[in-house]
């Protein structure tokens, strides 16, 4: 199918509005992206017609909700090409997924003096849970370096793997820089030493096809809300054998098979990790988002967004006082930048006044800001519904505000 951005835009009702008298240009997709009508409809449908608690009722609504909820699990399995539904655990988001692995896998397997290896371009959510685990266990967090283009120094990273390394946790695509990491090489090298690898796919999944069996990663985590699905739902993929061996993360309903006051028998995968009533409508909305994306094709989305990024980079390079932060050769549709004379927060406010939504700040990646010696960056992050015309509007806005600030 050919990629028709006009048709895609028409599927997103929120995009059709004026902000402060100007057409909305939404370029904050790395923070969260907008929802197509199909996802909105799926939420309306479940709450209007099919809603009840899952996995327990014998009545019709519970059966319908359970079928839709478990149907979404199968859609996730297909979308990332996992081997089994048992390997798909629904969580609140990427952050909870990483915390789950840290507290369950980590506490069971990681001891004093062990090492956890991450990179210098991680989001706080792939730093702090490991720091907490290190504080609890006496393990050590090691950080692989990056260069000024925002690329991981792969050889340095691989040289940091050793007999004490128990886990490698790497961002697939950086939210602050756009860099796409050479994860296949990292996984191969880590596996050669029998070290499992967790990939933070929060930014990667909306922008490229992801095949967890092809990658052979041990854990893959992502959020729904960056993937055109509702907020408050996310996925932990884990290889079955690993998940099977891990203790539960939270205790409660749904994650048990049998409870007495003397002992509790835990439920099978994936329910062992889904304590309590889950985000039923959110999961069903995620399923609808995956249907929508699959119909367009992730390969088509990736190709279109590569064009957008290339155009944006080319146009941005024409602005003399603009410095792009993150110039990796392998890069997703994110343009982080600073201006010589205008602070990112002023850029954000100025652009907002003409209808353009970007992010200004440290993007939950303060170590990245420190590395580039900037207090913050302005970040335009693109989605499949953005257009070259919108990039033109952005660039005109930037040129004008540079003039105003003088």
């Amino acid at each position, binding site marked *: 199918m050919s990629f028709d951005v006009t048709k895609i835009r028409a599927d997103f009702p929120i995009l059709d509005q004026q902000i*402060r*008298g100007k057409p909305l240009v939404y370029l904050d997709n790395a923070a969260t992206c907008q929802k197509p009508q199909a996802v909105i409809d799926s939420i309306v449908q479940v709450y209007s017609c099919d809603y009840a608690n899952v996995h327990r009722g014998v009545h019709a609504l519970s059966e319908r909700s359970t079928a839709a909820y478990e149907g979404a699990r199968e859609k996730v399995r297909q979308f990332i090409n996992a081997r089994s539904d048992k390997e798909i655990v629904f969580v609140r988001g990427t952050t909870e997924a990483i915390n789950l692995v840290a507290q369950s896998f980590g506490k069971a397997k990681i001891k004093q003096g062990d090492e956890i290896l991450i990179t210098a371009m991680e989001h706080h959510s792939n730093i702090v849970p490991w720091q907490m685990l290190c504080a609890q266990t006496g393990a050590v967090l090691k950080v692989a370096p990056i260069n000024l283009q925002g690329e991981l120094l792969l050889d340095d990273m691989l040289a940091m793997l050793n007999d004490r390394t128990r886990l490698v946790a790497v961002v697939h695509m950086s939210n602050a820089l756009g860099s796409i990491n050479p994860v296949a090489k990292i996984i191969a090298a880590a596996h050669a030493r029998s070290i499992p690898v967790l990939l933070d796919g929060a930014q990667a999944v909306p922008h490229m096809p992801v095949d967890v069996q092809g990658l052979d990663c041990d854990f893959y985590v992502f959020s729904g809300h960056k993937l055109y699905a509702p907020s408050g739902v996310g996925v932990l993929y884990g290889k079955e054998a690993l998940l099977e061996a891990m203790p539960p993360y939270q205790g409660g309903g749904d994650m048990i098979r049998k409870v007495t006051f003397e002992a509790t028998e835990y439920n099978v995968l994936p329910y062992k990790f889904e304590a309590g009533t889950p985000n039923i409508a959110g999961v069903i909305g995620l399923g609808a988002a995956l249907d929508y994306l699959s119909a367009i094709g992730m390969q088509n989305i990736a190709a279109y967004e590569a064009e957008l990024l290339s155009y944006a980079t080319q146009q941005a390079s024409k602005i003399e006082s603009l410095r792009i932060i993150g110039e990796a050769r392998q890069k997703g549709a994110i343009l982080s930048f600073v201006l010589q004379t*205008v*602070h*990112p*927060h*002023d850029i954000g*406010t*100025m652009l907002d*006044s*003409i209808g353009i939504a970007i992010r*200004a*700040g*440290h993007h939950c990646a*303060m170590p990245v*800001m420190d590395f580039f010696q*900037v*207090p*913050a960056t302005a970040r335009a992050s693109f989605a499949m519904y953005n257009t070259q015309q919108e990039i033109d509007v952005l660039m005109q*806005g930037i040129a*004008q*505000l540079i003039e*105003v*600030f*003088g």
Partner: protein
Amino acid sequence: MFDDLRDLYQEVIFDHNRNPRNFRVMPDADRKVEGFNPLCGDRLTLFLKITEGVIQDASFQGSGCAISTASVSLMTEIVKGKTEQEANQLFEMFHAMTTGKEDAINLESVGKLAVLAGVRDYPARVKCATLAWHTLEAALKNEQQSVSTE
């Protein structure tokens, strides 16, 4: 193009952003306090020279957005020669003006600082304008810890 922002970004603010006043380290300062908003990245160090309860000199170093830079630059100008008590009163007035809690505030009484009144319509930016003043308040109380308005 940015007509809607004239109340926020007045010419005085651009001027102080381009040419901040009293932008220097004060080696013999009596008070030195850091203000830092980590979410924004606005960071400043405020220096005061105080003799017998009067602010003899005020200066700053740091980097931030136009609003925070202009705010601290204007502040160092206006507090020079003021008693600590007068400076505290200015802090109260500035706070009321920027948070919009006191509509009746007389903008004339704050003099030049009135150019920052526009931030009250931009809730996300109030913290930029008030960082300098909260840092001043801490300095007047002789507190050492870093100040944040986030």
